[in-house]
């Protein structure tokens, strides 16, 4: 699936959720609790389109702020070379509402390790680089039940390598499980 198609899908989902009366019902007055997220994730490594999985864990610090740990793994190919990418980032999330539909914004910093390999003649040539970077983004949680939610999130990830700063989009959609009551 192309990046544009994935993003269009995300936009469509967001529009549907916000305009089709995803009425933000008042959430029951339960204390914030940790949650975990797992789902499909798409990103780009420069010109390469990568698909994979995204995992997140969050821990509440007050009513509107959470600590976030984000782990992602992607792979894909470009110009005959295979790419594998693992990202580990941590940061904070701000979520102003405690309703059925919960928008959030987050900022993360961490490490992105990209491995490139290509089969050539009678050898495999490979290269790995770890780049520090940061990500800014946000998303929406749509409550399905007390414990389960559907999440769509978007990051713009900035990493530095080869003397250049890269800004790569990342999109993920999946399910959230909330612990506690």
């Amino acid at each position: 699936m192309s990046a544009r198609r994935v993003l269009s899908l995300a936009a469509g989902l967001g529009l549907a959720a916000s305009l089709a009366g995803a009425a933000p019902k008042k959430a029951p007055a339960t204390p914030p609790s940790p949650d975990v997220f797992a789902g499909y994730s798409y990103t780009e490594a420069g010109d390469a389109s990568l698909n994979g999985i995204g995992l997140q864990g969050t821990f509440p610090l007050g009513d509107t702020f959470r600590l976030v740990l984000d782990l992602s793994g992607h792979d894909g190919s470009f110009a005959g070379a295979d790419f594998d990418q693992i990202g580990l980032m941590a940061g904070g999330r701000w979520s102003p509402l405690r309703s059925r539909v919960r928008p959030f914004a987050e900022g993360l910093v961490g490490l992105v390790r990209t491995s490139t390999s290509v089969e050539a003649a009678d050898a495999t040539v490979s290269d790995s680089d770890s780049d520090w970077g940061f990500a800014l983004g946000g998303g929406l949680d749509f409550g399905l039940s007390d414990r389960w939610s559907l999440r769509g999130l978007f990051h713009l990830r900035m990493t530095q390598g080869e003397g250049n700063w890269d800004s790569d989009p990342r999109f993920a959609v999946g399910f959230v499980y909330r612990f506690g009551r």
Partner: protein
Amino acid sequence: MERLVLTRWAAVFIVALMAVGCGGESPTGASAGGVKVQGVVMGESASASAADTRSPQASQAKKVTVKVEGTTLTVDVNANGTFQLSGVPSGTFTLVFLSDGVEIGRVVVTAGDGSEVKIVVQVKGAELIVVEIEIEDGSGSNTGPSTSSCSVNGGKVGQKIELEGNVASGTSASFDLSVNGRSGSPIKVSASSASFKCIGGAKTTSDAECKASVKTGAKVHVSGTLMTCTTSSAEVTATEVKVQKD
């Protein structure tokens, strides 16, 4: 109140998504049509397995730029090592690779209109090694002049080729290769960006010594890509040259 906040939030989210979705990157000076070049530049930390003896080295973050000689087309290799050039004039063109503004290598490519060139190179010190190069025509398949119009038996332009023969003339950077039974005339081999190694004979021979031993009469095995081929001549860009030692 919550609905208002939500609606605003969703609007911001959607606008951000659409901005990214519509904001396709375009290399400097690139335009539609012509040849599309997709490439990967692997850094100095690249290592190889199997029979390849290229050794890993410390990675240095240098800004790598790719230019098409004789045009304004230029693109910076991004942090992940990829680059893309569109609208490269069809025919024979030269990709010039620069590291922090200093030329480290050139690759001559011949491709028709609508073709897509996929190239993987490795930067090793001040040297550029072509790891792989592939040319696809506009329909997405590897084609070129039909086999019957190519002087190299089994050879197709844009596809990988392996040749064995003797150096008829030239140096390690560029030589003519005589291949008995596969081509009636010597094949021109461009090996300025190829890796060199010796096979057979003394195991202690260094790669540099192997490269220096490519002289008239040397028996070599060439791996690379057939760049041009007619009924009377052919050119191969080598990615690896193995020199047979007795």
